């Protein structure tokens, strides 16, 4: 599966468009992480726990999107975009969406 955030794929041509595919997830970290983040807020620096949270959410949202594309019989997703929103304190929603297409090598 080729995934890009551009509208085209260099070296490939798009022979068929299968439609919009999407995946979303809402994830939270355990309270311990939130307390650790509170301490980090005194001294500054990267919040590794929250970076991890974003990475996990992004992976899961992408996986769900890929599963949908596979079901449609696509072999590539183009123009992928991410959006995040805060549902409640300590949780983050990550939404990934793109267009599932069939791409063939050659211009």
């Amino acid at each position: 599966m080729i995934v890009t955030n551009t509208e085209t794929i260099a070296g490939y041509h798009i022979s068929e468009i299968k439609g919009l595919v999407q995946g979303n997830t809402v994830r939270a970290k355990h309270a311990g992480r939130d307390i650790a983040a509170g301490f980090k807020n005194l001294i500054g620096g990267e919040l590794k726990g929250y970076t991890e949270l974003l990475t996990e959410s992004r992976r899961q949202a992408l996986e769900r999107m890929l599963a949908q594309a596979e079901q449609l019989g696509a072999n590539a997703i183009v123009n992928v975009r991410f959006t995040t929103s805060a549902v409640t304190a300590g949780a983050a929603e990550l939404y990934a969406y793109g267009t599932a297409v069939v791409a063939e090598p050659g211009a």
Partner: protein
Amino acid sequence: MDNFLAQMAVVLFLIALGFVAGSVAERRHLALLGKRERDNGPFLVTQLKSFPAYTENELAPQMVVGEVVIASDYFKTFLASMRRIFGGEVRSFHSLLGRARREATQRVIEQSRELGYNAICNLRIETADVGGSTTNKKGAAMVAIIASATAYQYQSPSS
């Protein structure tokens, strides 16, 4: 009265701690970022929607994503709250956002290089909201950035 003094002492201690630890963390991060950016070599970064100077090869273009969450320190948060009284540019958060954006972009570049690509296009940088920091007033001040781009291989015209 003693209670008030004790509270003041705690706040002053936290501001001093934030100032010392925060500026050490920031200086270290900026130095590391500078070094990593110099190590990139001839890597083409654009936010063009197409693939400039693409060359035919086996590696198909691929999306890469990098994210980072950086916390503010107590001193910066204190300066920002002072700014909110008098108004004006909040310089203390300016460098925080800059660092987060550079870090996220650098992670995208490093990941692409590991996968064998030498260029990225359509770089998108957006801020995320984790921990409800914008919806929850008591929430800690932090910056979350997601950068995404499409990595591909190119041949530099000068080589």
